[in-house]
């Protein structure tokens, strides 16, 4: 794996850890004071710090370390995770998220923000911690603290200062138990210079008395080296408690030896490890026995391992390829079936029953492959907590965001494109939906406003709802704004629901003052557009004084689409079912010519532009007589209604979407292609583009006509 690849692993892991971090912090905030949550939070930050350190991301390491220090105190019970502490931690998790993003995108970090939060964290910790951090910064410079290993970069031929050290060490059984060996240490010493070794086997018992796991040898080493004593000590650092050790400096071969002995004396023996203390030696042996007796006991079987789901990381491209192949398989299977029918094979024949099985299997494979791309909405939902926090701060509102159905799975692409509309809707709900705390109290509601974000599967689609317990839509205000913006006429009769839906219209924004938060003159029409681009729909329901609920219904996948198969000038065209509101057979009295060959169709009390699909796509020179065709009333993601005129309807079918843009340049009015059961290629219409391409009747005309109707 390349360095780049490992870096990618790191950032993926960061995303996981950050989401783990936040969800556990939120659980703690919700009053769950369990140690496991605190440990998980600690580990998340710790992991990020570890990886960041490996890549030399200093900013990230520094911040993660400060954060970790606080978390460690909480973990040790020295700091109570009360509301203030948790708030600071959530803030810190936000900053950590930013730092990770900056590191990934190579952006500059807003240092001031980081410092502020860092100070807040340190404030929780008191002065002692700050000192610790300073020290630790230095420690990070040390890349390697090898024990019992030493640095290899000593050149023995170097004509530096040669010193002589007399080293005596007697391993205790513990040293061997810990997987070490005197020979490793001797090897380390040799790497520092020349050594003379003597082994003292006086303590070795006779064979019938020997304790096989005991340690009985003492090693005397004379080392000539140009390394200083600290290097020698370093070798024994990790084993100094596992052996009796003495190191003394002999005569230095170079000048300037006078001061050395004193200095060495001071370092000499660790008081805890007096040379050759028989009592301790025995204690060591006893310990060995305890361990031996325990060795008979089988190690505790991990019981929880079954709960952990094994996962693998797969390049998305491979999955895409698989999905494409399965798409081909589905088509191929359908073709075979059709051929069997054409050939007049008996339904009970072996071939037909085999084909039936094949169909079932293909369907299962298709579902299985789609499931690979499916991911829980949890990461997106979790990001919303931060949005809610920030929006709450900006508007001085008290908010509780409740999320439900986080495990609901949706196609990866759908999830990715869900973040923006969801963010927008949430901000909108906080900014315009919820009242200020004072207003809420006046209305007899709790100060804290609740927003519920939920996801669930409903009849093969994913339904995402965002419901607030705010004041509901002020219909009078919405209406007057719509009139002021020229969206409706002052006397247009509208149902309550129609008024609510006005807020999704382009150019509508209820904020009298464009707020910093949800709007920059951009309304919810952007949300609607994004959702409909995904083949989804948005609807709104509001009750004055009780709240507002916006519902998004989305397809589970973007690889397959429900489509209406229609005939257009000898071609089969697929119109996405999600765009079609209704289909009808136009009567001649419904059609109105408005000149320049443009026509409108009168539906109930409104006039809707008519688009002859065959003509627009260039299949035919002139449009057909509407009464000879079928009209499909569609609504584009932009909210424009339009009637598509086609020759006939073949039926409804699920189609596998194949991009055409890889092979051809963008074709106006065409979104993609598919392969039909009989192997023919059919184009999938892009309704919005079709309408825009046709674009003869300015959109603005529509409301005026509505009013006239």
């Amino acid at each position, binding site marked *: 794996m390349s360095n780049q*690849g*490992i870096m990618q692993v790191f950032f993926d892991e960061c995303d996981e850890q950050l989401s783990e971090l936040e969800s556990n912090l939120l659980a703690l905030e919700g009053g769950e004071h369990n140690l496991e949550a605190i*440990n998980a939070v600690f*580990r998340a930050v*710790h992991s990020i710090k570890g990886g960041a350190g490996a890549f030399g991301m200093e900013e990230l390491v520094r911040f993660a370390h400060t954060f970790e220090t606080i978390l460690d105190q909480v973990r040790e019970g020295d700091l109570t995770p009360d509301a203030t502490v948790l708030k600071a931690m959530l803030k810190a998790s936000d900053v950590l998220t930013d730092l990770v993003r900056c590191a990934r995108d190579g952006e500059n970090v807003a240092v001031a923000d980081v410092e502020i939060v860092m100070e807040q964290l340190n404030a929780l910790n008191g002065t002692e911690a700050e000192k610790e951090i300073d020290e630790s910064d230095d420690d990070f410079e040390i890349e390697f603290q*090898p024990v019992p290993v030493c640095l290899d970069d000593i050149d023995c031929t170097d004509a530096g200062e040669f010193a002589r050290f007399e080293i005596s060490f007697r391993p205790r059984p513990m040293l061997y138990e810990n997987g070490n060996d005197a020979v490793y240490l001797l090897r380390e010493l040799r790497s520092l210079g020349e050594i003379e070794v003597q082994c003292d086997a006086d303590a070795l018992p006779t064979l019938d008395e020997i304790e096989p796991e005991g340690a009985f040898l003492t090693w005397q080493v004379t080392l000539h080296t140009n390394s200083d004593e600290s290097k020698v000590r370093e070798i024994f650092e990790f084993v100094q408690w596992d052996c009796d050790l003495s190191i003394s400096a002999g005569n230095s071969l170079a000048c300037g030896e006078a001061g050395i002995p004193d200095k060495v004396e001071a370092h000499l023996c660790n008081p805890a490890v007096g040379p050759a203390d028989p009592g301790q030696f025995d204690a060591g042996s006893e310990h060995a026995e305890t361990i031996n007796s325990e060795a008979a006991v089988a190690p505790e079987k991990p019981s929880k391992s079954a709960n952990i789901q094994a996962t693998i990381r797969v390049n998305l491209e491979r999955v895409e390829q698989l999905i494409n192949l399965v798409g081909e398989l589905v088509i191929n299977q359908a073709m075979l079936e059709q051929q069997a029918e054409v050939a007049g094979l008996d339904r009970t024949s072996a071939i037909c029953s085999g084909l039936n099985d094949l169909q079932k299997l293909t369907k299962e494979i298709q579902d299985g492959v789609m499931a690979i791309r499916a991911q829980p909405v949890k990461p997106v939902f979790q990001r919303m907590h931060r949005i809610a926090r920030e929006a709450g701060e900006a508007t001085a509102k008290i908010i509780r965001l409740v999320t439900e159905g986080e495990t609901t799975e949706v196609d990866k692409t759908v999830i990715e494109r869900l973040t923006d509309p969801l963010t927008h809707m949430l901000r909108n709900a906080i900014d315009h939906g919820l009242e200020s705390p004072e207003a809420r109290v006046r209305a007899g509601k709790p100060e804290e406003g609740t927003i519920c974000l939920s996801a669930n599967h409903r009849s093969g689609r994913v339904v995402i709802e965002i419901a607030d317990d705010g004041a509901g839509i002020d219909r009078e205000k919405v209406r007057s704004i719509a009139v002021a913006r020229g969206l409706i006429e002052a006397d247009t009769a509208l149902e309550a629901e129609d008024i609510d839906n006005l807020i999704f219209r382009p150019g509508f924004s209820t904020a009298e003052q464009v707020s910093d938060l949800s709007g920059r003159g951009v309304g919810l029409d952007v949300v609607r557009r994004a959702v409909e681009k995904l083949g989804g729909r948005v609807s709104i329901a509001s009750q004055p004084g009780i709240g507002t609920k916006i519902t998004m219904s989305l397809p589970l996948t973007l690889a397959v689409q429900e489509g209406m198969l229609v005939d257009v000038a000898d071609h089969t065209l697929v119109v996405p079912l999600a765009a079609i509101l209704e289909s009808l057979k136009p009567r001649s009295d419904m059609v109105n010519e408005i000149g320049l060959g443009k026509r409108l169709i009168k539906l109930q009390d409104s006039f809707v532009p008519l688009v002859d699909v065959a003509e627009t796509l260039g299949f035919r020179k002139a449009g057909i007589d509407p009464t000879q065709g079928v009209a499909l009333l569609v609504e584009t993601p932009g909210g424009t209604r339009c009637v598509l005129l086609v020759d006939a309807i073949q039926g409804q079918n699920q189609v596998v979407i194949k991009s055409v843009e890889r092979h051809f340049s963008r074709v106006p009015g065409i979104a993609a292609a598919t392969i039909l059961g009989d192997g023919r290629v059919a184009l999938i219409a892009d309704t919005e583009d079709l309408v825009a391409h046709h674009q003869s009747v300015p959109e603005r005309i529509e409301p005026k006509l509505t009013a006239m109707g």
Partner: protein
Amino acid sequence: MGKTILSVDDSATMRAMLEETLSEAGFDVLLAKDGVDGLEVLERETPQLIITDINMPRLDGFGFIEQVRRSSNNRAVPIIVLSTEFDETKKETARNAGATGWIVKPFDPEKLVGAINRLTA
């Protein structure tokens, strides 16, 4: 015959880095994502050396080392702790649990490999 090293770390990044470093140095690498996972690997494998992290879910490095030292087939294997921590009391805990050495993350690949070679020669 190539030497086998077991690396136990809950961080996918660290596992990827260790795998890269160690396999490049000619070792066979076994990976485990926490102590429990590590013990499972050790039920069927006998690596020449173990590198373990300390902070891990389910079973941390200290617990893992203790269990390895109590096991029947791998109790004498050298175990290097690879941790971002450098706290003396933690090191001592590791030592008491049975660790052979302690290396502070981030590690220098060359030096890590050198250390492994010396402990497995």
